[in-house]
């Protein structure tokens, strides 16, 4: 097993544990607190290395989502959001392409392409993920107001955590 595979497996386990054992437990109970969901795990898909094929990224996203769903008692909800986020990843990467081309040996991280680039890239990815997730959770667009409210509220806390996670672990 090479180092990149073991790194991905380790990150998979770490983010799963963080999401389920730590962030799922923070459920603010005051008035508007219910709109704030803390989802840190989309960063797993965000910083997967470029050398993984599109198909492998989608499969990894599905695997992560379906296992997370076991803990959230919501089969399919997280998984569908993960699959969608993984699927549009190449499109988003093409949208925010930096001056220099992407290097196939790298990962889309701060240490490779700088803070500003990563902030923009992860913001788009996270927002798309959250919007898709809350839409599937509601399963209808009747509650579009609530979906958007939850998306924006959760975006604020989750985005902060994702950037923080990048700075702490700082993967190459």
């Amino acid at each position: 097993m090479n180092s990149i595979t073991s790194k991905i497996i380790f990150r998979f386990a770490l983010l799963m544990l963080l999401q389920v054992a730590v962030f799922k437990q923070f459920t603010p109970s005051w008035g508007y607190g219910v709109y704030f969901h803390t989802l840190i795990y989309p960063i797993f898909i965000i910083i997967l290395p470029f050398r993984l094929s599109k198909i492998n990224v989608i499969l990894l996203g599905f695997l992560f989502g379906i296992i997370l769903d076991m803990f959230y008692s919501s089969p399919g909800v997280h998984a569908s959001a993960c699959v969608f986020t993984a699927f549009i990843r190449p499109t988003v990467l093409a949208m925010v392409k930096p001056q220099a081309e992407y290097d196939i040996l790298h990962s889309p991280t701060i240490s490779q392409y700088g803070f500003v680039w990563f902030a923009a890239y992860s913001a788009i990815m996270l927002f798309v993920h959250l919007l898709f997730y809350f839409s599937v959770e509601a399963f209808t667009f009747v509650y579009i107001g609530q979906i958007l409210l939850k998306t924006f509220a959760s975006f604020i806390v989750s985005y902060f955590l994702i950037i923080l996670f990048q700075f702490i672990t700082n993967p190459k």
Partner: protein
Amino acid sequence: MRNLILLFVKYGNIFLFIFLELICLALVARYNADQHEIFVNSANIFSGKLYGSVDGLKQYFKLSAVSDSLAKENARLRKILYNSDIDKIARRDSMLDLDSSLQYSYITAKVINNSINLNNNKITIDKGANSGIKKRMGVINADGAVGIIKEVNDNFAVILSILHRSVKISAAVKSKGYFGSLQWTGNDPTELELEDISRHADISIGDTIVTSGYSVKFPPNHTLGIIDTFWLESGNDSYAIKVKLNNDISNLQYVYVVDNLLAEKQSQIEEATINE
């Protein structure tokens, strides 16, 4: 054939995306329709164990609050034991005592998983069929109602929380007798809506809402909450009433599963007349 393979190589990710997305949505739809899948509830052994240990850790931070609430509960029970009034009037119509003096017994359980911010919330507890818990039993805590048992295995049970849109509780306005059904609207986890109270009813803000005892799931006169606001919608024959919950679903530690020993008898006789 070669072209077909090339097509798959080129657009494989799109096919895979659509395929997996369809699987996910099928899962979601199925789960919304009925919750019989073992995968659906967190009562399966794997996640149940993990939540058990996470909860063990969380317990340490809440020890003082828990002991406070237990002490309060003890005091209340003691009051009932020693100072309970003697009922001097012989009630000959009391059908509850015909062959059993005890109607409700309670099974204490610890909450190991809970949510309040989904559209349909569920609670997992650490007692199951081995402790005598059965499907469709009611669950209360000292301050109000908690939910209704939905799935049971040997060691765990899953409760549909009162913050679940399909849960309805038969409730009454205390000492006024009007009754209706209490249901969550999916917004504020501290507020439920009471329906079917007729516009002729004489209610006011601050009135206490209790369980009616009409359904077999909950004992009568257990406080649920107070009337927060109410209004009459035009063209409607009954009030829309917002009820502020007495208990805090976001902070549940111990709950009581209601074992109504006469439930079967009540259901039996009610079913006997169902087609009349």
